[in-house]
């Protein structure tokens, strides 16, 4: 696991190679992460995978979070692992919401990490983030004809109110 100075070194090297790729870093709970420009995902991940001395060859997880009302709204998280040194590194692509019902877009990393195929389908399924260049971008868990992106924060939570004794007074005449 790179410590906080090691993380800064990685960020610096990346910014030398790819101008403006890493916007910030954070180091919390013993784990560091790079916050990157969503347009440079493939550059950053490819560099971290192939550069001697880095060699984060294993993508252990790819997931997403909705930070609404924060800006940029979405964060696509890549959890990388170097098997030789047993070091983990987080990469977070801060994806803004284009608005007007359009879906945010990120480059697919399936060519770098084949395991990302199902992960990206899941992120698409629940957050509606389109991965450019994905071979088969469909819903993976929800029904194919489902409408909406259920894990977004502005999605209605669903369910039905159930009558208990504590909310009985709020619905007078429920027995009729």
């Amino acid at each position, binding site marked *: 696991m790179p410590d906080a100075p090691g993380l800064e070194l990685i960020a610096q090297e990346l910014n030398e190679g790819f101008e403006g790729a890493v916007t910030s870093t954070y180091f919390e709970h013993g784990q560091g992460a790079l916050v990157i420009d969503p347009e440079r995902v493939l550059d950053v991940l490819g560099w971290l995978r192939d550069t001697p001395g880095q060699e984060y060859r294993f993508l252990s997880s790819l997931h997403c979070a909705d930070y609404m009302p924060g800006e940029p709204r979405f964060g696509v998280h890549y959890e990388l692992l170097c098997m030789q040194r047993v070091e983990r590194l987080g990469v977070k692509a801060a994806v803004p919401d284009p608005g007007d019902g359009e879906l945010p877009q990120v480059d697919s990393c399936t060519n770098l990490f084949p395991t990302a195929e199902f992960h990206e389908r899941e992120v698409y399924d629940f957050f509606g983030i389109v991965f450019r260049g994905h071979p088969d971008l469909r819903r993976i868990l929800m029904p194919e004809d489902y409408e909406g992106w259920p894990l977004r924060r502005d999605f*209605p939570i669903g369910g039905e109110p*159930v009558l208990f004794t504590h909310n009985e007074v709020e619905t007078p005449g429920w027995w009729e």
Partner: protein
Amino acid sequence: MEVERRKLRQLSPVDQPRSPDELRVRQLRARDLLRDELAGQDLERHVEERVLTTTLERAQNWARSNAMWPATFGLACCAIEMMSMVGARYDTARYGAEVFRASPRQADMLILSGRVAIKMAPVIRRIYDQMLEPKWVLAMGACSSSGGMFANYAVVQGADKFVPVDIHIPGCPPRPEALMHGILKLQRQIQGQPDLGWRQRYNAIGTEEWSRRPPAGELTPHTGDAPSVGPPGPNGGGLR
């Protein structure tokens, strides 16, 4: 006539033989019956003691209620309790509901054991449609009865939205005793009050499989316009 009946009743309330001699006499009567040598007073005695009369419906309901075969179908954690119900400790074989059939064609009871995801609902409906009549559905646990703790986008809020449920069993999950209690309730419903079945409650008389078949007069001869076997037409039908 009435006097004679009463006399008969007085003569024949014997269910258990009261002495070894009487048992021996009964055995000899049964042997003579098998040899076709029983006649006269002995024959009448034998019929009084050994024949039970009832109506066909009652006998049918008794047989149905005591041999309900559930479908092998587990949905979630409630299925663990459902499986333990079949085991030696709880042994639902005592109530005739232990033969889990792997084919819906052989099962007549569907235990919805767990939460029903919206992706699972059409599958359950298809299994239910494939089961042969008469068939019963038990909603086991809070989730399949009302959605339970899963008040969210992915879970059907109550399985009775898409299949007719006969018995709801509360609990999260219900203990195997509770599930057996539900099965006993269902048995009592089938035996004693078959009119309390779901068709009456849901106002669905006439939707049985045998009543959905068109009458013989309406069957038109094959004209060649529409294929008799093939994809279903716009009116539905065919394989669902």
